[in-house]
């Protein structure tokens, strides 16, 4: 029984609602159906886009795949004029620059994650965490700009000569100091991936239940010992996931690397030598691809890049999602 409308100043008589109120309710089933249809349409579009990315890459790369077969992956010769395309220099460059970047970024990133999650005084945590997130927001081209005009000259003038004179007998440090090259690329990749490892690592460590820390503390452990025996083992798989996420980023990083790696499709052991990555050759040569085979070869490199980064990322997500689950859960 509808009550008196209080806006009308109260009267005890019942107000009857117009019939259209109840009839409209029935019509709204179509509203629901239409809305659901919109949702599903967008989902379908999304799935189509994802499938489209894979499909487009596969289709466009088929001519090159058919032409070169497996020799594409192991061939070292990248000659657009002769139409001979071997992608090994790029695969090598991508792997080496990424590994170099990770070698620096992993200890720094995990150390920073531990600092943020376990050690830093509480007022410091939020601002420092925010600064690290800002690092992740800096566009790649800006890092590249800094790399060309600050990092590379610095390497050329100070670091490479120093390394060359002290450790120059190692094949790693042979060659003229260009500044740009594999070393610069590796360093700039480490600068760019460290914030990801630190941020995700911090989340992983914060997710470790406090009861674990308390158990260690109650035994009389120092703060570092608590981190070492209770927090880090618990978050181990999540931390590995964070590192892999960083690796995924490093593999696909394009602009900053292109601007400092020297862009020479050669395989060299020396870190001083210029190199080339899969993403960089795409950036540099895609618009210059004169023939269909050239374009197809480039797209095939794109496909390789896609497959590798997707695999690394999927594996990383799996690990990050199961922090505490990879370790068998405590049965009640």
């Amino acid at each position, binding site marked *: 029984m509808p009550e008196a409308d209080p806006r009308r100043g109260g009267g005890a008589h019942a107000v009857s609602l117009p019939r259209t109120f109840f009839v409209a309710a029935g019509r709204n089933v179509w509203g629901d159906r239409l809305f659901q249809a919109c949702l599903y349409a967008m*989902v379908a579009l999304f799935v189509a886009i994802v499938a489209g990315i894979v499909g487009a890459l596969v289709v466009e790369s088929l001519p090159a795949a058919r032409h070169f077969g497996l020799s594409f992956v192991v061939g070292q010769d990248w000659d657009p004029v002769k139409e001979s395309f071997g992608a090994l220099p790029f695969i090598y460059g991508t792997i080496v620059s990424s590994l170099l970047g990770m070698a620096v970024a992993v200890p720094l990133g995990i*150390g920073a994650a531990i*600092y943020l999650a376990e050690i830093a005084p509480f007022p410091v945590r939020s601002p420092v965490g925010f600064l690290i997130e800002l690092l992740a927001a800096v566009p790649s081209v800006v890092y590249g700009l*800094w790399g060309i005009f600050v990092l590379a000259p610095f390497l050329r003038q100070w670091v490479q000569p120093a390394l060359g004179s002290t450790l120059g007998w190692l094949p790693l440090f042979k060659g003229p100091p260009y500044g740009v090259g594999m070393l610069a690329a590796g360093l700039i990749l480490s600068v760019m991936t460290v914030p990801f490892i630190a941020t995700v690592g911090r989340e992983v460590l914060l997710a470790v239940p406090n009861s674990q820390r308390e158990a260690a503390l109650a035994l009389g452990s*120092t703060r*570092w010992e608590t981190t070492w025996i209770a927090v880090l083992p618990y978050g181990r798989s999540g931390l590995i996931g964070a590192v892999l996420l960083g690796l995924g980023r490093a593999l696909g990083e394009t602009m900053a690397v292109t*601007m400092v790696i020297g862009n020479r499709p050669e395989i060299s052991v020396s870190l001083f030598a210029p190199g080339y990555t899969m993403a960089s050759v795409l950036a540099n040569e895609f618009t210059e691809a004169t023939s269909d085979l050239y374009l197809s070869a480039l797209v095939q490199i794109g496909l390789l*890049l896609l497959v590798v*980064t997707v695999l690394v990322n999927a594996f990383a997500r799996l690990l990050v999602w199961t922090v505490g689950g990879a370790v068998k859960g405590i049965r009640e």
Partner: protein
Amino acid sequence: MSVATRRFVLNRVMGFLCGTAAALVILPLILVFAFLLYQGGSSINLEFFTHTPTPVGESGGGMANAIVGTLILIGLACGLGLPVGILGGLYVADSQDSHLPSVVRFLADVLNGVPSIVIGIFAYTLVVLPMKRFSALAGGVALGVIMIPIVLRTTEEIIRLVPASLREAGLALGLPKWKVTVRIVLASARAGITTGVMVAIARIAGETAPLLFTAFGNRFWHHGLDQPIAALALQIFAYAISPFDDWHRQAWAGALVLISIVFLVSLAARLATRDLQRQMR
């Protein structure tokens, strides 16, 4: 050294090392920003914001067309990214279907990790090849695809936070389900979704790689969305690798403008998130 002292010293040393790691992580941020201010600060003037690039070798000129171009590309990207992202996120958060929501969530995470240049290739095959020219449209499609996973995941998280009691109140009032979702749930999630969109925009504003062979860049004002268009990040790249000092100067200035926009938007998003969290408690 006794065991107790060793443990004490180790505690201090490790604390120091981790703090040093954090400081080293932040150091590049300070270095980059300092250099941008130093190198680019002096080149920021009215001409920078109002003029287009001058011919090769002449000094002066600005990046007005690039700034406008970036704004246009962001607008186009939102045209694709917002509907798919928001409605997709709504679907994943609300749907009772058994498998599709988690598949969509997984695909969104995967898409998030795809290198942006690969997405550029996709936009190239989808838009540039059929149209037989580079265009703003192609650039917008590429950036839109990059936006989708970010918007989708943040929308999903925000919608999940909306308390069920709010929905029930709407249903109890006699509103149909779709109105409850649109009028009540989306409305209360509006702040959070806007924040997610801002984060996504900050990300695509700085993207260069996917635009290299879609939007392609333009030294002049574009003449239509089916034409190549300039973008701030593209222009910075082109100037940076050029041999002209004057262009290098402008690249620094452009980078300063770009990073300032990105930082401001990120900061705003961060503050909004903190307010939201306080509200939700």
